[in-house]
């Protein structure tokens, strides 16, 4: 099965019943599969006039209580920034698939990249937090899409599947389980205000349209009633701190990664395609001491994973960008961080990684 199709199948299994999208390479197969499948499951597929409309439509659909998703790539992702912020401030559960390609601008439509990792975190104006998942296999395109929907419901924020052309267009054998664990919308309790929260419960219940809550939803700074309150310093500060805190304070629970070779001095930190390359060199050279962190969730960044490598003298971060997550790694550790950018559309080869390993090994010195 192709990665993009696995993603669409995962969404359907998670209960997605509204897809609004716009054709763009290399994500189009997600939309095509949704167009085919939605009528069969009683859902809605709609091809919108652009990506701004696509994300608008899924936010509107989500307020009717439906699980909703869109899929795009760089240029469309840039257009979506406006309403990613709207989904964040209104706390609308939505899932956005970004099958990344080379940028900036139209860039390399058919080639792979990971250049939107910072954009998904910080691309829309203002302060808020999001969750971003990074599959490195077709199986994970399925599993992490299911997980993306569950996290969107749990945290009421935009959740991104930050895939790339390599994994999106890859074909692998996958196992689709008979059923998956699904988190459903948690309805607002009657008598509670729409955005009423406390320190222990920073995510409010959801006042679904048509359920009698008579909620007013606005992108303006709002109080617990949902009413605009745009010049009160405390209202704004409390809201923004909660939007950030509800995700960041749970980052260690949200964290999803696997690690290997925890006693190594040289540690690769990867997400997406480079994970496969690290696994290949570890398989090719079982005698070498290679540490590896594979992140399945990049945002919120799980900095505690770095402490799992007490002997680490260098973290090598191969990315298909100029070092976006590498910079985040460097922010959290006194250990040396080596950026290993790969641009142009190809994934890292085992040779790329072995050269970096040997170079760092020589600098560290000592035996293996």
């Amino acid at each position, binding site marked *: 099965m192709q990665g993009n199709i696995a993603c669409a199948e995962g969404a359907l299994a998670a209960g997605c019943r509204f897809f609004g999208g716009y054709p763009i390479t290399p994500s189009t197969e997600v939309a095509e599969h949704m167009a085919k499948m939605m009528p069969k499951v009683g859902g809605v597929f709609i091809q919108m006039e652009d990506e*701004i409309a696509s994300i608008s439509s899924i936010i509107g659909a989500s307020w009717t209580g439906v699980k909703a998703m869109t899929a795009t790539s760089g240029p469309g992702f840039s257009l979506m920034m*406006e309403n990613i912020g709207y989904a964040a401030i209104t706390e609308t559960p939505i899932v956005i698939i970004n099958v990344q390609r080379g940028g900036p601008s139209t860039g390399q439509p058919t080639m792979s990249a990971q250049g939107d990792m910072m954009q998904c975190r910080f691309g829309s104006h203002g302060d808020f937090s999001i969750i971003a998942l990074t599959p490195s296999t077709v199986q994970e395109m399925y599993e992490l899409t299911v997980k993306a929907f569950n996290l969107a419901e749990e945290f009421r924020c935009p959740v991104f599947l930050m895939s790339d052309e390599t994994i999106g267009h890859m074909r692998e054998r996958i196992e689709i389980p008979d059923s998956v664990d699904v988190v459903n919308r948690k309805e607002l309790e009657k008598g509670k205000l729409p955005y009423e929260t406390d320190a222990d419960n920073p995510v409010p219940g959801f*006042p679904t*349209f*048509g359920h009698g809550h008579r909620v007013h*939803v606005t992108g303006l700074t709002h109080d617990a009633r949902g009413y605009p309150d745009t010049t009160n310093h405390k209202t704004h500060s409390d809201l923004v701190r909660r939007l950030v805190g509800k995700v960041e304070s749970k980052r260690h629970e949200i964290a999803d990664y696997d690690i290997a070779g925890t006693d190594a001095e040289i540690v690769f930190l990867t997400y997406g395609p480079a994970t496969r390359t690290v696994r290949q060199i570890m398989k090719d050279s079982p005698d070498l001491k290679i540490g590896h962190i594979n992140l399945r969730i990049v945002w919120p960044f799980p900095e505690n994973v770095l402490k799992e490598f007490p002997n680490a003298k260098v973290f090598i971060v191969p990315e298909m960008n100029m070092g976006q997550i590498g910079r985040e790694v460097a922010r959290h550790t006194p250990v040396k961080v080596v950026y290993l950018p790969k641009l142009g559309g190809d994934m890292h080869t085992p040779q790329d990684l072995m050269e970096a390993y040997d170079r760092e090994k020589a600098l560290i010195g000592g035996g293996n």
Partner: protein
Amino acid sequence: MPSVSEWYRADRMPHIFCTGCGNGTVLNCTLQAASDMGWEIDDTVFVSGIGCSSRASGYTAADSLHTTHGRALAFATGVKMAHPEFNVVVFTGDGDLSAIGGNHFIHACRRNIDMTVICMNNMIYGMTGGQGSPCTPRGAFSTTTPYGAQEPTFDLAELAVAAGANYVSRWTTYHVKQLTDSIKTGMETPGLSFIETMSQCPTSYGRKNKLRQPLDMIEYLRDHSILISKKRRLEAEGKVIPDTTFAVGEFVRRSRPVMGLKR
């Protein structure tokens, strides 16, 4: 059946509209029409974009979605397609709908989604202090047209007709009875209904164009409107119609294929 006053969200009063603003009139006519329709508040969703007009959604008692600039129709498309049982009403303005939201406007009309779109056209960007819009008449003054507007304007009703909406009308805040009836007709008509309301903005438009008093602006709207039937007759007779006038009345009522009908 809820009365007009029940359709208002009382704890949101007082509203932010300036003294003499026409938007309250349009809101009142809309809620009167909703009440006349016998709609239930909990079956209705109001969607709006950004600008003075779009604050109207927050003054209704129903579920309401105050969205981003220009995008109201795209959000409303998601609401209505995901849940066709809702009555969906969109409030928008001339800048919101025809400038930043122009693409969504023509595509919503083309899809002919079953909802009612009410545009409060005050010919100006009121919320930001009176800048020219695509509907600012040629020669009119605004803070960004200090020498008089030079650009040709959009005719929003004709645009909606061309793009495919099933029901299109234009009235003014002077024509309260006709406006209310027209909104109700729009709500009754399957498909996208577009009701353009020429609305006065004495604060931002009037002060720059010698129409400071609300009544002066309402009289201006009355005096410059011409019934569409009369306009078409004059056109057929080859008569010259002053380009400072605008047509009012029902532009189209038809039954093109519709999306998002109640199941």
